[in-house]
């Protein structure tokens, strides 16, 4: 169904019929407990809030993306049913009792002993639970050259945030007796058809941040997110968070796998590609208001959005409603966590005139999110990955909000 009219007029009949005539649910008996088979679903009125592919973006549906509906989400937790998807060879629902994790070395001396773990064993080891964002390196990739898609879902929706639970990979490597001196690179490998592989720096493992995770938002990972096991690599692009994780190899060289030698490489002006670019730099986006929405009234609005950094905590977010000439500092919603989404908000009274709404995040390293001009001056316009430029939404006089880029 299309949008409803926003109206709360002083009623003609001396009262709003929705108040004066009691609805059926005020006068009847409702549904029983556990009536959805012991696992509840959203309201029927929320059917518009879906993850969606972008038409024409990919040629197949199994090597494809569905985008999280950022424009409709609150706070920082992404409901697991709306978590963005990126598959290279489709998703599977694997029997966890048969799943195994192997640790081996690129050569015989890299590990004291190669090891095999069952899920039972992994879930018995010491675990931690941490909130982190995951962003695909290609998020906002369609927008490098110019505006390509209309809403925050499509511009920024390869982004989600969850509470992950798992075992620090360091614990497993210690058990296997890894040679941390020689073994400065890890290969993570999945059990699906693509057997996705990515090179991971040992530094992140040693920091205790990299998790062999089975839990997401309190329950097990969803099949689309790698059930029963995925690598969690906070701050690093999603492709490295290998799903259906079956193997970790400790090595002394990077692996130049398909998704780090043909894709997820950044084309620079001059024709060189940056390889092994992995960190997701500081970025933000306003989700309310955002492209494809219509503001129906002048007056008060709360500008709201998300900020994040692959290098640590978000320190500050500034918001402009005049296309970047003047900025005000937004409120950051606690808790502000490292390598995690941070929700920001700011009061705004819309005067009904065109407005260019932007947000600009800064992280604890002092790094400031760049404008398109600043980013393109270094990286050109033909990359696909790691576009963290400031997003601009144009609120038109009609109230309609459009995705625009400024010169």
């Amino acid at each position, binding site marked *: 169904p299309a949008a409803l009219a926003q109206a709360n007029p002083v009623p003609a009949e001396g009262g709003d019929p929705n108040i004066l005539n009691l609805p059926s649910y005020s006068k009847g008996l409702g549904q029983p407990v556990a009536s959805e088979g012991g696992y509840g679903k959203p309201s029927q009125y929320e059917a518009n809030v879906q993850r969606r592919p972008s038409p024409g973006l990919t040629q197949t549906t199994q090597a494809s993306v569905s985008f999280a509906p950022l424009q409709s989400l609150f706070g920082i937790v992404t409901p697991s049913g709306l978590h963005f998807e990126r598959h290279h060879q489709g998703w599977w629902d694997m029997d966890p009792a048969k799943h195994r994790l192997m640790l081996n070395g690129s050569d015989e001396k890299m590990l004291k002993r190669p090891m095999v773990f069952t899920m039972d064993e992994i879930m018995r080891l010491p675990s931690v639970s941490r909130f982190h964002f995951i962003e695909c390196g290609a998020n906002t990739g369609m927008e490098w050259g110019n505006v390509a898609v209309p809403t925050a879902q499509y511009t920024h929706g390869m982004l989600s945030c969850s509470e992950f639970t798992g075992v620090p990979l360091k614990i497993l490597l210690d058990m296997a007796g890894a040679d941390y001196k020689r073994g400065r690179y890890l290969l993570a490998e999945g059990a699906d058809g693509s057997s996705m592989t990515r090179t991971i720096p040992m530094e992140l493992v040693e920091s205790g941040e990299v998790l062999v995770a089975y839990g997401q938002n309190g329950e097990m990972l969803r099949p689309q997110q790698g059930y029963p096991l995925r690598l969690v690599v906070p701050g690093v692009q999603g492709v490295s968070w290998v799903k259906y994780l079956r*193997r970790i190899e400790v090595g002394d060289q990077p692996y130049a796998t398909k998704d780090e030698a043909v894709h997820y490489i950044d084309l620079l002006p001059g024709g060189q590609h940056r390889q092994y670019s*992995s960190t997701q730099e500081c970025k933000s986006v306003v989700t309310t208001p955002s492209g*494809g929405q219509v503001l129906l009234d002048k007056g008060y609005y709360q500008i709201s959005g998300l900020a994040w950094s692959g290098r640590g905590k978000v320190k500050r977010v500034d918001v402009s409603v005049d296309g970047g000439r003047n900025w005000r500092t937004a409120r950051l919603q606690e808790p502000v966590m490292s390598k995690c989404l941070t929700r920001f908000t700011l009061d705004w009274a819309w005067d009904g005139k065109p407005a260019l709404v932007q947000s600009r995040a800064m992280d604890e390293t002092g790094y400031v*999110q760049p404008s398109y001009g600043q980013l393109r001056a270094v990286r050109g316009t033909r990359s696909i990955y790691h576009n963290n430029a400031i997003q601009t939404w144009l609120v038109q006089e009609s109230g309609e909000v459009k995705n625009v880029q400024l010169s």
Partner: protein
Amino acid sequence: QPAGYPGIGREATPKEVAAWNIDVRPDFLGLPKGSGTVSRGQDVWESHCAACHGVFGESNEVFSPLIGGVTAEDVKTGHVARLNDKGFPGRTTFMKVSTVSTIWDYVNRAMPWNAPKSLSTDEVYSVVDYLLNLSGIVPDDFVLSDATMAQAQQRMPNRNGMTTDHGLWPGKGMGNGGKPDVKAVACMKDCAGEPKVASFLPDHARNNNGNLAEQQRLVGPQYGVDTTQPPG
């Protein structure tokens, strides 16, 4: 048994490691013994790959083209010149990839897409040989094997096309140690010039991603615009 967590996990057997340790590195570590020819590769290609990728790897029906855009000159320089040509449509696999191991490893683990890991080692050598030949990297009679792959590597068109001199590797072994390439400043007042809209979606494209009215919550501070209707 490892200390700390007795009874949890066990040593992997050599057979088990062999079954899963299939990766092949740029230095060819992990490459199994074997070989293949261009003509056998063509057979493999036509029976197992061409339906999706096109007879000459040129199809964009299920994915971007694998083949095309590289020249004999590129094979000499190790730089694909067309990566600099904004007019060239798309960027093929062989325009980008710098390491032949990458192709071998990927075909071996993941192709054919609907039946990964179904090819024999020699079939993988052969079909990769065929792709190298299609790209003008190896001659028609080139036998690709664990012994000759290094020769092919020396002729990869984009072998000099990669750099790790950047701030996006979160470790010490590569990159510049994490130094960002862009240094913006958080100006607060009277910052830029008059902002001008330089890019936006044309009106005729407004319904390209479906009716946006159906992609927004039914209640809230604002609704979705009905993109089946013209603006205004």
